């Protein structure tokens, strides 16, 4: 680009002023051309479209020369017109370059955003696939656990049924040695006094131990949180006091024995009922024999059966 092109045209004109001294005033067209060129020369067109600016400058120079030679001539007017339009053209083309650059930049950003969006989406899909795999693994694990539990439950049920059968069988075996009464929440085993004790004594007969072993085994098969009450009863012979003491001593002997056979002592209490609560007529020998007894009550409510016993 020429040296002139680097300077606003008005400064150039100032420098030429002494030479141009005496020339008549410029036409409006020339004034407009100078101004348009001046604006363009200061704009981005100087760097973006310098060739176009130079064309404007050439036209302006010719207009100036024409003005010097023949002020107000058609040539001056024509080249001034061309100069103004070329200056405008230089600026418009400069703006066009900038606009096209902007478009390229925005398109590039779009690519970046689109690429980023795609990568984000792919990342999300990967995450989701990972989560699906995790869930599937968990589901498999759960199914396995479920199967195992089912197996355990089946085994447990089998074991429970077996235990119940065993408990029932144990109770059945007790029928040979005593009476079994099952009520809503209470199981009562009644043992005849004759089987357990000698007349008037509270020490267990050797044969009683066989019977009580069976009782202890049967009790072990009952639920371990059930409370056990051992109650002693006598017939009406003898004083009430003596009968009371004897019945308590006998109940304690039975209690101590079954505890020694593995029943938790904390669950078992002994009570002496004396001649109260007869179950048969004390006037007959058979009735009295029935009244001499020990009852073992197993109750599920955890309360002592003594206070409620009849």
């Amino acid at each position: 680009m020429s040296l002139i092109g680097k300077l606003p045209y008005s400064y150039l004109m100032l420098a030429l002023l002494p030479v141009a001294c005496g020339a008549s005033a410029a036409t409006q067209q020339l004034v407009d051309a100078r101004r348009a060129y001046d604006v363009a020369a200061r704009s981005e067109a100087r760097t973006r479209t310098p060739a176009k600016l130079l064309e404007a400058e050439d036209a302006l120079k010719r207009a100036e020369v024409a003005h010097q030679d023949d002020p107000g001539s058609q040539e001056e007017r024509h080249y001034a017109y061309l100069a103004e339009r070329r200056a405008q053209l230089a600026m418009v083309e400069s703006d066009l370059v900038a606009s096209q650059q902007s478009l390229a930049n925005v398109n590039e950003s779009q690519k970046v955003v689109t690429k980023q969006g795609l990568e984000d989406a792919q990342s999300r899909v990967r995450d989701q696939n990972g989560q699906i795999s995790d869930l599937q693994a968990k589901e498999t694990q759960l199914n396995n656990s479920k199967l195992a539990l089912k197996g355990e439950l089946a085994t447990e049920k089998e074991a429970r049924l077996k235990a119940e059968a065993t408990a029932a069988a144990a109770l059945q075996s007790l029928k040979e040695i005593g009476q079994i009464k099952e009520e809503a929440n209470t199981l009562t085993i009644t043992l005849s006094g004759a089987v357990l004790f000698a007349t008037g004594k509270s020490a267990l007969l050797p044969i009683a131990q066989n019977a009580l072993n069976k009782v202890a085994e049967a009790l072990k098969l009952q639920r371990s949180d059930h409370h056990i009450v051992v109650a002693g009863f006598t017939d009406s012979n003898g004083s009430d006091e003596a009968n009371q003491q004897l019945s308590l001593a006998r109940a304690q002997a039975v209690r101590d024995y079954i505890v020694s056979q593995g029943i938790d002592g904390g669950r078992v209490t002994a009570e002496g009922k004396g001649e109260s609560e007869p179950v048969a007529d004390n006037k007959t020998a058979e009735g009295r024999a029935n009244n001499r007894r020990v009852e073992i009550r197993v109750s599920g409510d955890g309360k002592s059966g003594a206070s409620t016993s009849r």
Partner: protein
Amino acid sequence: MLLMNRFRREAQVLGLLTIGLAWAPLGCASAQVPTQSVADARASTAAAQAVGAEKDPQAALHLKMANNSLARAERLIADDQMDEAKDALGEAKIDADLAFKLATLAESKQKVAEAQTHLQELSKEAGGVAQ
């Protein structure tokens, strides 16, 4: 001659160039019809119209100026004022070229605006990725 010219101007239609050419050999031998300049100016005007110069106000203004200059040039040719006609054709061409570029610039700016809108939508979709 002047009267004849005036008559001819009144008689002229769009096919002026042909008439001009036809008259050239008969008219002043020194004044050649600037056929190339006419063709250039018309080509530039047509190009400006083709890119939609009428739609942009500034482009439309210069397209109108170009058409005016072209019409003036045709009259001058008819008047056998070939030098003046050539100048007018040059002015018509530069205005048409300017109209062309102004229309192109308007279109480019429109594209940039659309692309920026699209980019903003994409950015929102992408969850606020920095531009």
